[in-house]
């Protein structure tokens, strides 16, 4: 098992290194000059040249990449003279549009995205799995039909439409969920405020996902119910809820770990739409803004962060699955 984990870790590291190289290369080969974007409206060639040096864009690509990479471990210095400063390790670069070390920006944004993703994950797992189980249990009943309708609507309604409708009708028009423009507060500081802050975004984000999970759970439960070992469980004389809970769900939902893990990883990279609609200062909105601003270091860092999360989640999911399914454990 340790052997397996270490090999997986190595593989993940290699993938990350490659992804970072690729992302770095892609954004360097884009047809604009990052230095030209740094000097505002009074741009003159000598200024651009000066900024190129100041921000290190004059160096060869591999060296820039190396500086970036080493910055993660030892921090990085920027600027010259009295305007010089250091982004301490782990440094992911410096945003000349936002005048801040990217690491600091990410530190601000990550908790928001994390709260959003975790809350939504919990919500959609509860709703999706619950509804899926109900639909499977009462197959072809009105509950099943209802869940099918929910699934169809949930999967066809774009998130931004859901979010906007919820915001306008639940909050602004009818004040069912009180409006909350407050800044992000940590759950540890003020749980109720935290809850209100994220309630609507959670619902929005969970809406589409729970539809997918309902669909998945329903078919997985139905499929698993037809397995021979479920018949064995019935033959033992177990009560139907034991058969469902202990036998059917365990097997039906184990693969869901993978799905949920990867969806979750995708969201950590930034739930761009939800964060945009609800104006949450998370990674997604930050990266979208960075893209619009050609804020290259932020784009680079968030992309890498998102990739890291995907790779790490992949790893976690695999390990978790090994815990859940004894057959995988041998590895």
């Amino acid at each position, binding site marked *: 098992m340790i052997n397996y984990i270490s090999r997986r870790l190595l593989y993940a590291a290699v993938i990350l290194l490659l992804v970072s190289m690729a992302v770095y290369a892609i954004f360097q080969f884009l047809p604009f000059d990052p230095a030209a974007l740094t000097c505002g409206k009074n741009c003159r060639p000598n200024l651009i040249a000066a900024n190129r040096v100041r921000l290190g864009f004059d160096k060869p690509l591999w060296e820039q990449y190396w500086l970036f990479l080493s910055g993660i471990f030892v921090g990085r210095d920027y600027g010259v003279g009295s305007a010089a400063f250091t982004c301490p390790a782990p440094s992911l670069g410096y945003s000349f549009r936002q005048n801040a070390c990217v690491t600091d920006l990410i530190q601000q944004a990550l908790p928001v995205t994390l709260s959003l993703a975790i809350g939504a994950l919990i919500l959609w797992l509860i709703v999706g799995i619950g509804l899926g189980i109900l639909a499977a249990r009462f*197959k072809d009943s009105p509950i099943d039909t209802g869940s099918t309708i929910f699934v169809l609507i949930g999967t066809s309604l774009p998130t931004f439409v859901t979010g906007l409708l919820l915001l306008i009708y639940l909050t602004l028009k009818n004040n069912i969920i009180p409006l909350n423009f407050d800044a992000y507060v940590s759950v540890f500081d003020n749980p109720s405020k935290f809850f209100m802050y994220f309630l609507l975004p959670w619902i929005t984000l969970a809406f589409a996902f729970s539809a997918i999970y309902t669909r998945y759970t329903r078919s997985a439960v139905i499929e698993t119910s037809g*397995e*021979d*070992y479920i*018949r*064995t*469980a*019935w*033959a*033992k*004389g*177990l*009560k*139907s809820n*034991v058969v469902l809970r*202990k*036998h059917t769900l*365990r*097997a039906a939902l*184990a693969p869901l770990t993978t799905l949920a893990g990867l969806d979750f990883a995708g969201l950590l990279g930034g739930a761009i739409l939800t964060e945009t609609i609800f104006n949450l200062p998370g990674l997604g909105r930050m990266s979208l803004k960075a893209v619009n601003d050609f804020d290259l270091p932020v784009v680079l860092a968030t992309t890498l962060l998102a990739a890291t999360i995907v790779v790490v989640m992949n790893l976690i999911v695999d390990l978790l699955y090994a815990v*859940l*399914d*004894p*057959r995988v454990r041998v590895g």
Partner: protein
Amino acid sequence: MTRLLDINDLHVTFPTEDGNVKAVDGLSLTLDAGETVAIVGESGSGKTVTSLSVLGLHNKKRTRLTGEILVHSERGVVDVVSCDDEELRKLRGSAVAMIFQDPMSSLHPYYSIGNQLSEAYRVVTKASKKDALKRCVEMLDLVGIPEPQKRVKEYPHQFSGGMRQRVMIAMAIINNPRILIADEPTTALDVTVQAQILSLLKELQREFNMGILLITHDLGVVAEVADRVNVMYAGKVVERGTVDDIYYRPLAPYTMGLLSSIPSVYGKGTGRLSAIPGQPPSLISLPEGCSFASRCSFASQVVGASCATDAPQLIEDEPGHSARCHLALADRRTAGAKFAAKGGTA
């Protein structure tokens, strides 16, 4: 003898898009303590559906059941067809247990053997976890699994096919059921393992005086373990009798055909096998008369009835030996002698 099971005029149908499938069509049988009754037939003859319906494990939404399945349990007689789910549940495991064809897929892949076994035990006895585990180890030992202390913690995928079937048997008999339904218990196993399992079953039956309802397509297995045999074809029993009746004095043409189709290691591998021509009929549109008529070589010799239009009844031709055929008994006796297993030649 103690009567354990009475099946009276059981009909099982399931509606499909193309029409009703009559999987079982008027089956009656009995099972007593200590005896093994076999249902033998080819695929689609309705034998598996029968075994599942005894435990009420058939798909209730898709299947229609009529008739009676009377289980004589310690608490009295229960009709599986009409009783409620809770009563049925209480029968399962304690009065009636079952082992299945495929031991690979019949154990839950995510739980340890001990977990699954003790669950079966505790659902009936309400024993403590510790006691249950002790019992599991005993049972594993009983069914011949070496190092039961260690293996009880292992998972199904760590067991071979034969070992898994032993586990399944342990699980089935852990509550000392009176009836054991064995649905093709050895089909998925290799011959050497199959022999082990069959002998284990016989041994356990002797020890616990169980009634075993054996479902199989393998006439060799039947010959080895069964006391009485029901031969099924297209949802109906076409012949019923003791094992010797069936093998040495078959009275239904289908049974004769079946017996003669089998090459035997002890027979002489001479020339052609006498195969039954044609295919079994569709269960959706069964022929009006005898289901076997179109494949039967005796159909032309029948006098006084038409195999194509009149369905024959199951008639007790000899005491305890019934068959479903229009052909005169004498003719069938003669033919049967010809087709009979090469008895006693070994």
